[in-house]
């Protein structure tokens, strides 16, 4: 042995004095912890786990609700390799690994546990592996920008402002989806959203169209104006932008030419079962019921009061949001399945409901909300005080409407924004400038309209001034001068009833030559004549009582759409579909 071998004899030993309590490095990958309140149980951790060490299990005290599956990851430490891919991919940043690495237990089952739920000693450790920073993502957090017309390009015309995704854009956006399927529960029609997004990724748009039509026969329409509740719960929205589910749906529908629909959807030949169903109203609920009943072999006849099909989709939504040719594409496909439609036919006037009952095996009514509500403040009886819904219909019908230089719109919902922006366009065409003011009871944050609607209205030169309660319309010499308002403090009292409280001292005055009221719509049930009405049970809040399949107490009469749920297009579609199933059950059992 050389003397070097003795050189460390008198040196201090380098052994760790207390090896059992050696703290691991701050980045160490030890046992899991999960912030169960942040976690939504999307299962992306399970999908990425290369060892299949993660299960999603129900947990006591965590409820399944919109945007939360109620499941939480359970780790099997017999399989885990501590790679922390589950942490890196976590869409809510709730999962992490602590730097605890020592754990002894005699029961092997204890090594399978739900982090954050089952009590463990290391949850108070702050250190451990978290998703690395900065710019370290396993998917795109930013939404692919949608091309739109600039305000100056669009503010004087009704051409469509959203341009739609290109193939590259759609595939890039579809790539962001992690396929958790949390959105499907929230969609009223429970569309197969991850499935059709996958079809886009695979560039199999025919498959995508089939998936769309499984639950939604109006994809062109929904792809443009759906209220996209799915996007509000999208798991990607927790750290970044939610997936543009609505625009992706539109992309599939846009790319499939209508001539090929029948071939793709295999509806060339439908076997008839000889039964007949009448449908009142050609809105989303009626069209949806008509479509699914046709697939089941029923002969369908639709009775439409107006001269064209589409209901509120055509007569309520302005053309710049939903072009008429796109409505026609969806509607014509449904009509091409042999659905008959009688235009300009009003039930109760041209034909009675009882007559329909005699001629048909069942009746579905999707009549919608077409009566404007009034604020009933002083001055609303003036001839230049309009209902938004009436004006929108007239614009669609191409009728000349009164467009003065100064207009005030009362209302903060999407319909109010529609009429505001439509009037702004008409003013721009007529006068070259815009002077529309929209005001609502709700404050800016609580306005029911979609955020982008408010932003776009302002871009187009409209004034949106929320938080005011209308008091009276000032009329001098038979001419409207403007609208008096006071500041609105709150809308609901403690019990949750609608009871606005105002600060009467803070007044304001909006100058105007014309006032439009847009504070909601009511339903018109006058078509239901007395003999039927007697048997019709009513539910809460003046709505008609229906069962799970939208069957009224009358039996042969089914109702759905805005009169029952909503109001929006996607609920109408879901109602129509469910009612079709209900009608089929009702008639096959009879």
């Amino acid at each position: 042995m050389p003397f070097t071998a003795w050189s460390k004899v008198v040196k201090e030993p380098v052994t760790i004095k207390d090896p059992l309590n050696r703290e691991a490095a701050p980045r160490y990958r030890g046992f899991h912890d999960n912030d169960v309140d942040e976690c939504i149980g999307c299962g992306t951790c399970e999908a990425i786990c290369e060892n299949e060490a993660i299960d999603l299990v129900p947990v006591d005290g965590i409820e399944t609700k919109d945007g939360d599956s109620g499941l939480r990851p359970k780790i099997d430490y017999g399989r885990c390799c501590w790679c922390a891919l589950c942490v890196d991919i976590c869409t809510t940043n709730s999962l992490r690994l602590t730097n605890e690495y020592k754990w002894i237990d005699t029961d092997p089952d204890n090594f399978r546990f739900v982090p954050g739920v089952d009590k463990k000693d290391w949850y108070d450790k702050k250190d451990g592996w978290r998703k690395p920073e900065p710019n370290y993502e396993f998917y795109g957090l930013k939404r692919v920008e949608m091309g739109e017309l600039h305000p100056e390009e669009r503010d004087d015309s009704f051409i469509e402002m959203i341009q739609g995704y290109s193939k590259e854009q759609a595939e890039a956006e579809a790539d962001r989806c992690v396929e958790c399927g949390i959105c499907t529960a929230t969609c009223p029609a429970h569309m197969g959203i991850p499935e059709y997004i996958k079809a886009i990724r695979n560039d199999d748009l025919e498959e995508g169209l089939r998936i769309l039509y499984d639950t939604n026969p109006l994809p062109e329409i929904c792809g443009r104006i759906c209220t996209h509740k799915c996007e509000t719960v999208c798991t990607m929205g927790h750290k970044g932008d939610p997936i543009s589910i609505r625009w992706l749906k539109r992309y599939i529908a846009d790319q499939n030419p209508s001539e090929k629909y029948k071939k793709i959807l295999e509806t060339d030949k439908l076997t008839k079962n000889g039964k007949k169903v009448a449908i009142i109203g050609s809105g989303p609920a009626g069209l949806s019921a008509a479509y699914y009943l046709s697939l089941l072999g029923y002969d369908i006849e639709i009775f439409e009061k107006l001269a064209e099909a589409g209901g509120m989709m055509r007569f309520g939504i302005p053309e710049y949001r939903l072009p008429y040719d796109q409505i026609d594409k969806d509607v014509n496909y449904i009509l091409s399945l042999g659905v008959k439609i009688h235009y300009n036919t009003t039930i109760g006037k041209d034909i009675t409901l009882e007559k329909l009952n005699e001629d048909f095996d069942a009746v579905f009514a999707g009549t919608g909300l077409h009566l404007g509500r009034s604020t009933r403040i002083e001055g609303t009886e003036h001839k230049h005080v309009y209902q938004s819904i009436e004006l929108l219909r007239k614009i669609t019908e191409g009728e000349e409407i009164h467009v003065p230089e100064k207009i005030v719109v009362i209302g903060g919902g999407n319909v109010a924004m529609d009429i505001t922006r439509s009037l702004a366009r008409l003013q721009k065409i007529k006068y070259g400038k815009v002077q529309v003011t929209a005001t609502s009871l709700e404050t800016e944050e609580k306005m029911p309209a979609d955020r982008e609607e408010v932003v776009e209205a302002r871009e187009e030169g409209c004034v949106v001034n929320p938080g005011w309660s209308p008091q009276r319309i000032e009329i001098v010499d038979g001419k409207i001068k403007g609208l008096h308002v006071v500041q609105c403090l709150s809308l609901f009292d403690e019990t949750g009833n609608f009871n606005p409280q105002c600060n009467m001292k803070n007044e304001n005055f909006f100058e105007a030559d014309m006032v439009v009221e847009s504070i909601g719509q009511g339903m018109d049930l006058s078509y239901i004549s007395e003999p039927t009405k007697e048997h019709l049970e009513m539910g809460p809040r003046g709505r008609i009582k229906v069962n799970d399949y939208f069957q009224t107490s009358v039996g042969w009469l089914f109702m759905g759409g805005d009169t029952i749920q909503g109001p929006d297009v996607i609920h109408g579609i879901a109602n129509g579909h469910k009612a079709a199933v209900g009608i089929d059950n009702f008639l096959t059992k009879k």
Partner: protein
Amino acid sequence: MKELINKLSKDFNITDAVYQRPSLTFVTVPKGVAISLVTDLRDYEGYSHFVMMSCVDWIEEGKFQLLYLLHNPETKTDIGVKTFIDRENAEMASAHHLWKQVWTYQRELKEAFGIDFPGSPRVDEDFVVEGWVEMPHMRRDFDTKEYSENTYFPRPGRETNDPATYMRKKLYPNEPITAKKQDNDK
């Protein structure tokens, strides 16, 4: 690199050449030509370092792709000589006489893919999976997951839920859903 490939094309039937990197080229030749091309590259073109031999199973086409990867220490370039052989009764001429380690690769390929190299030393000896009775384990149609499920016994007590299906059962069990999803549930 291109010049060399053009020059070789005159003597050898090179059916395809992919220039993956400036220093790495893959050429495809018929089965009968591969060993002569490899020998030529070793003896006359300076590709004296045998990097590796490998096989890819293109089961859809019924072919095995054999690769001889050679390196030239002077020019610091690599050529991968590829050849396709039939998957059924796969057999290839042995190259064990060219480099000392080639027989090891051939022995592994015999075991892992079932490709025979007649004349290669110890080609029939077991290599890494002694006593293996299943099909050659690196073939694409050998399903490792199925094998482990049939061979081993997982500890019971594991069950998982698909979030979307679970939410449907909880929140809307009777609603119509897309057919695609129904298939997945089964």
